[in-house]
């Protein structure tokens, strides 16, 4: 495919934002500023960014727990995001939901369930609404290779297919569900794409460390979906760089393999491309790193300075 410089730069910037966001999450967690657990998305950014490069105004999104940065791409301010992550009143749920639930409906985000796959049907529901109103948009739903083995995924695929709903199922295959390698969890090598046929859907497997490869596959599938031909499955193969959660020392896998995979760095690939094509120079890249980092530092400072909700507010938002 031919790309405009502008498009490549946009892709790169989104990728970089995700990368730096996911890094910042790890660092901030290490400082003890985040409750609960985080699941670093480092290594998987291209799956999300490449897919979402096909998005259009009015589309709906169901994110995974693996790349919280997506919320920011879709419109949630860093202030709101970090406030929720740091459990502050200024977060979208006032710190009641937390890191997995950084989400705003005004940006067409459908939310996330930490009971994996129980949210997979939401995209179909949003797609029903689009179909109902005769709107030409679509819905994206992200899930992991491990989650692919849960029943609701299959039910949702069949329902979307039988109702010809405009849904893209995106399987972020980072090869592990916690410690369980994809080959231990799934009987087929591609737990996303290999199951599309069971519902008569088209599918693609993309190199999930290459944002352009992901974009191209996503483009073909979203063209199909936007043409009213029903749902599809995109699977992006990548590798989870870090432990499942921070603190997981990954005793169940081979460090050498991890290191090999970490060389397939989607951000580095894009930087090389942009430098080779002379679309950008190193100084500009450095500058972008700095700017995004500054933005995030400001957002974190904002979150830190923000108050938490009070006990009196504990029941707020439960019932309308």
């Amino acid at each position, binding site marked *: 495919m031919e790309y405009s410089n502008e498009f490549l730069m946009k892709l790169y910037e989104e990728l970089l934002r995700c990368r730096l966001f996911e890094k910042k999450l790890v660092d901030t967690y290490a400082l003890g500023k985040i409750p609960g657990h985080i699941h670093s998305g480092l290594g998987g950014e291209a799956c999300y960014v490449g897919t979402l490069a096909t998005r259009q105004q009015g589309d709906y999104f169901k994110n995974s727990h693996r790349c919280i940065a997506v919320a920011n791409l879709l419109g949630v301010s860093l202030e709101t995001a970090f406030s929720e992550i740091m459990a502050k009143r200024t977060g979208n749920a006032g710190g009641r939901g937390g890191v997995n639930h950084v989400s705003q409906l005004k940006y067409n985000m459908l939310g996330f*369930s930490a009971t994996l796959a*129980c949210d*997979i049907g939401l995209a179909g529901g949003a*797609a029903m609404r689009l179909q109902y109103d005769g709107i030409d948009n679509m819905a994206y739903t992200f899930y992991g290779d491990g989650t692919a083995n849960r029943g609701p995924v299959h039910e949702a695929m069949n329902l979307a297919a039988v109702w010809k709903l405009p849904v893209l199922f995106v399987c972020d295959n980072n090869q592990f569900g916690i410690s369980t390698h994809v080959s231990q969890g799934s009987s087929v090598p591609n737990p996303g794409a290999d199951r599309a046929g069971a519902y008569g859907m088209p599918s693609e497997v993309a190199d999930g460390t290459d944002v352009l490869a992901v974009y191209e596959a996503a483009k073909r599938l979203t063209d199909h979906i936007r043409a009213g031909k029903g749902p599809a499955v995109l699977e992006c193969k990548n590798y989870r760089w870090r432990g499942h959660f921070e603190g997981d020392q990954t005793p169940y896998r081979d460090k050498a393999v991890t290191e090999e995979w970490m060389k397939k760095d989607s951000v580095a690939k894009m930087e090389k491309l942009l430098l080779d094509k002379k679309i950008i120079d190193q100084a500009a890249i450095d500058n972008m790193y700095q700017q995004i980092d500054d933005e995030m530092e400001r957002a974190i400072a904002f979150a830190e300075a923000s108050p938490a909700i009070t006990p009196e507010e504990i029941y707020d938002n439960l019932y309308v």
Partner: protein
Amino acid sequence: MLVTFAQAVGDAMREEMRRDDRILIFGEDIAEFGNIFGITRGMLEEFGSKRVRNTPISEMAFIGAAMGAAETGLRPCVELMYSDFSLVAFAEIYHCIAKWRYMHGPEYKLPLVIRSAMGSSFGATGEHSNCLESLYMHSPGLLVASPSTAYDAKGLLKEAIRNDNPVMFFEHKQLYKTKGEVPEEEYTIPFGVADIKREGSDVTIIAIGLMVGRALEAAEALAKEGISVEVLDPRTLVPFDKEAVRKSLSKTHRAMVVEESNKTSGVGAELAAMMQEEMYDELDGPVVRVAALDVPLPYNIELEKYAIPDAEQIAAAIRKMF
């Protein structure tokens, strides 16, 4: 207008769907077939296949779809054929639907209703006879309705459909054919307002669903013996009308809860615990629970009957209170 409970439920949906085209219904066998009890018969013809849809046997998927549709601007009123099947989408309901707005923020309203047919019905056995209200009462974020008359069913279902919170709406199978007076004109019944189905001064029975009728029967029998029974139907369990109970107890000073579910951890557990805790001074004795025996409902109809409270049992339990 004398209509059956089933008709009242259907009419509630029809009237609301005529009023608001954001409302749609889906579930298993509700379209051409008009649901296995005939409740949605004619709705496919009236509202078309965009608004009335058969689903595959995929409760998790269509409950999830209902959530997604509700979030994004539709108002789904979905049917889980039997309440027992709500358990196959239990995590979706208990974790997701209930907690969604709390976990994601106030924008995330879920105006959706999950209707289902509940309770015993002559040999339906352990997986098709369950009364599950108490399970859903334990997950904050849900509203729970369990009406006992055609009038209440219609008014509460209309209210449920208009409500911006997710509602679990239980319809007792054995009530579907019972008839009741329903006004021609539009009405709704607010959630959290109990109804005194019979006034009395000696003892208050809080009865739910099918048990309301049996409590009334028992009350009738006891009246002849000089015991005056008040029958209070909470109609909704979440929210629950504590004030109505308090008022009734301030008159009777004795309470019984009658329900059709297994006694242990049933609705009566919560209500009895709450009353003795919050209304202790009004009570002259323990709150008595009359409930199903703690067994899966047997297939044998005599044993099924034996497992579930009837008027005689209720009356006997009341007599023992004096």
